[in-house]
């Protein structure tokens, strides 16, 4: 299955929750653009988590949100450290902008919810979001990254995001 088809399949699988629609082919991005997408995706998840901490009373949802903030902040710190070491800066691009636009729309929707409805929507989105991002990282980003240290960082990040996907699946199952 091609990367494009894989991503389309992901979007179809998660048609009921926000999926990542692409304004730019991820396989065309350079290392610094890929780094920007990853940084953007982490920041989006951190923003979602802060909203969950503000609006949710569910202990498991709140613990998950705290873990998202902690882990994504750690990944972003490592990414910034590596970029500084390499003397480079992440480059904004169409995919990052597309992610931010979709995130703004989702946050607007999510902030209007409360109670169990909020928890379910947040958790389902976290599951779908991590599945889509993990597809991108594993199948489009890691195979195309040229710098060995950047590729290694993305492999570490994929391990973390895969754990998040499994964790969010647990939350979704419990809420259902």
């Amino acid at each position: 299955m091609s990367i494009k088809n894989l991503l389309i399949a992901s979007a179809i699988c998660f048609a009921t929750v926000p999926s990542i629609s692409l304004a730019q082919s991820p396989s065309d991005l350079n290392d610094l653009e890929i780094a920007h997408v990853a940084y953007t995706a982490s920041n989006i998840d951190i923003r979602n988590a802060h909203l969950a901490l503000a609006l949710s009373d569910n202990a498991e949802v709140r613990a998950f949100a705290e873990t998202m903030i902690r882990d994504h902040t750690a990944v972003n710190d490592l990414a910034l450290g590596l970029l500084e070491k390499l003397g480079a800066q992440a480059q904004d691009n169409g995919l990052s902008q597309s992610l931010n636009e979709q995130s703004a729309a989702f946050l607007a929707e999510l902030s209007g919810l409360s109670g169990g409805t909020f928890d379910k929507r947040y958790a389902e989105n976290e599951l779908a979001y991590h599945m889509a991002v993990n597809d991108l990282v594993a199948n489009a980003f890691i195979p195309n990254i040229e710098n060995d240290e950047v590729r290694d960082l993305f492999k570490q990040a994929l391990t973390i995001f895969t754990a998040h996907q499994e964790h969010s699946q647990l939350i979704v199952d419990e809420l259902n």
Partner: protein
Amino acid sequence: MAKPIQRRVFLRGAFATATALCGAAIVRAEDATHQIVIDGFAFAPDDLQITVGDSVSWINRDAAPHTVSDIDEGFESGTLRKGESFAMAFLEPGRYGYICKFHPKMKATIIVSR
């Protein structure tokens, strides 16, 4: 149920503090130290058998922070960032199950025998 332990914490490579939760431990010359590596969101080994008086140290190799948290609340490492370590001596026999509080799928066990 909390069990008597001696806990030693190493932070950022430096021996930071030694906290005895239940009296001082007599460390024998033959007491061994075992290392558990936290890597890829798993404790390795995840099933360790040791002898009373032995010490165990954990080091976090993951980019994500983790904890070493006794399910019976007998010991708690606090947040271990990448490269940070936590160590303690086990002074009582028993089965010690522990988890990472942040990542519920991370579970492991230490069995301490005489």
